[in-house]
């Protein structure tokens, strides 16, 4: 390869992680730093936007410096700065966006705005080269989407949640089971010890739809717990966790399989924080036997949760496609993919 290597610095501050990373050629992590605020938000039972923004200001230059130090690079050696411009918490996004603009301005290097979900999808490219067309199942605290990609940089949302995101349903059910925040990992752990013996609904929606709905399931869990309590019965939380998880996972996996077959994709990518869920990973691997010619890519846990390497990876592709942001780049909390 005679082409020059491309180094992109990614910055991600859309929620409660202040993150920066340097990625080479969109595929190789040179440095990846994530400062999590999770502990700080735990006492509030969820992310408090104003507190998240305050932490980001405290952390931003520290995280940038640590990234440059680990990469043993100078900002002048970078080919571009890629930053999450949305969606997310606006006050939080603003810190990353303005830091990125200041860096790009100071060193006169290109600036690229990246959609957070595009980042999650491109986390997979840090593990395995993408093969198009592909289908990405994006599941996180804020998102549940099936994204079809015909080629690099082209995203078509073919299915999305009509109410709660899967991760949101996990957190709400965890609260009903009196598990600590964030609830997802606790339910996943409990589910392994229980049996899916409680009858809960699956929202398939209308024939051929790849959309999701989790609010009915969440309500069913809460009602079932409430009714059992009134009758003086005790349900094993392990069984409830297992039954809830089985319902979520079954719908997610089945719709993914149907869409993959319908679109004739070569790869299925799992993306987003809920991709860390053991139950989902296992079931997806199991069902992939139905599509032997399709490759399943699941990034390691550290790349499933919010990080900046994924933003740098997506930013590299956008940079190569000629996408540039100006100094007027803004945070957009409801940015569309």
């Amino acid at each position, binding site marked *: 390869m005679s082409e020059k290597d491309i180094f992109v610095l990614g910055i991600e501050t859309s929620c409660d992680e202040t993150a920066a990373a340097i990625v080479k050629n969109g595929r190789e992590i040179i440095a990846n730093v994530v400062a999590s605020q999770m502990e700080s938000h735990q006492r509030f039972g969820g992310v408090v936007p104003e*507190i998240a923004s305050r932490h980001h200001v405290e952390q931003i*230059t520290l995280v940038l410096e640590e990234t440059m130090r680990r990469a043993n690079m100078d900002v002048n050696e970078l080919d571009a700065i890629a930053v999450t411009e949305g969606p997310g918490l606006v006050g939080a996004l*603003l*810190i990353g966006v303005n*830091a990125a603009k200041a860096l790009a301005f100071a060193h006169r290097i290109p600036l690229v705005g990246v959609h957070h979900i595009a980042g999650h999808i491109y986390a997979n490219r840090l593990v395995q080269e993408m093969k198009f067309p592909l289908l990405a199942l994006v599941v996180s605290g804020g998102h549940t989407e099936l994204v079809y990609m015909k080629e690099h940089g082209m995203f078509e949302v073919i299915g999305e949640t009509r109410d709660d995101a899967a991760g949101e349903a996990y957190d709400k059910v965890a609260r009903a089971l009196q598990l600590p925040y964030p609830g997802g990992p606790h339910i996943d752990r409990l589910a392994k010890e229980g049996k899916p013996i409680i009858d809960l609904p699956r929202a398939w929606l209308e024939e051929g739809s790849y959309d999701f709905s989790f609010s009915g399931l969440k309500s069913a869990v809460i009602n079932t717990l409430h009714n059992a309590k009134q009758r003086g019965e005790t349900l094993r939380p392990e069984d409830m966790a297992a039954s809830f998880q089985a319902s979520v996972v079954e719908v997610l996996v089945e719709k993914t399989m149907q869409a993959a077959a319908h679109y004739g994709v070569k790869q299925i990518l799992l993306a987003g924080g809920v991709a860390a869920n053991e139950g989902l990973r296992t079931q997806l691997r199991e069902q992939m036997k139905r599509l032997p010619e399709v490759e399943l890519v699941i990034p390691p846990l550290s790349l499933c949760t919010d990080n900046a390497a994924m933003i740098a990876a997506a930013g590299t592709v956008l940079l190569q496609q000629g996408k540039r942001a100006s100094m*007027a780049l*803004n945070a957009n909390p409801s940015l569309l993919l």
Partner: protein
Amino acid sequence: MKVLAIDTSTFVMGIAVVDGQVVKGEIITNLKKNHSIRVMPAIESLLQECDMSPKEIERIVVAKGPGSYTGVRIGVTIAKTLAWTLGISLIGVSSLEAMAASAKYFQGLVVPLMDARRGQIYTGLYKAEGGNIQSIVADQVILATDWANELKAYDEPILLVGNDSSLHEASFIQTLNRAVQVASFTLHNPRPSELAWLGMHREPEDIHTFVPNYIRLAEAEANWLARQQEGTEC
């Protein structure tokens, strides 16, 4: 020394480039527009007008609050990142002090103020003397009516300054009578060149640990602390 000053703590956006004893350029707007979209383009165009490259900047002075949380954070984030990446000094100056500096030739006490909702104001007390100002009472958030009462203890003339003066001047005039004046409206926008001037001879901050002076805790934090307090009292 070439100084870049940034103030985004209220609706007023102020950017100044000061070179030694010369104010080379200033951009000041008082518009209900988004700072995030406008600040970096303003810095870019002002430096360009001044034929200055970012790498020539030797010091950044930023208004560190109080003010709009989001507004202050935008200015502080840009200032911290620029200072860190350019390897230059960073100075944080009170946004109220910068506002009071517009009245530094007043003989008496200067009360800069910003509306903080529900009858409250961000304010402080500064003494103006011979073109200098000095903090007498630290920046705080207080009910405008309470602050007017506290100011009765001072028997020097008082000047209110800041765009939100009109919202609260009645409380002060009622309580303090003729001892209080409101600055001309042309002095209300804080001047970023005054901010640069204030930051010129101060000790630099530690860039990494530098944060805005919000004055107030985040609401969730305050509520949480109050609950902890209740817990210990039981």
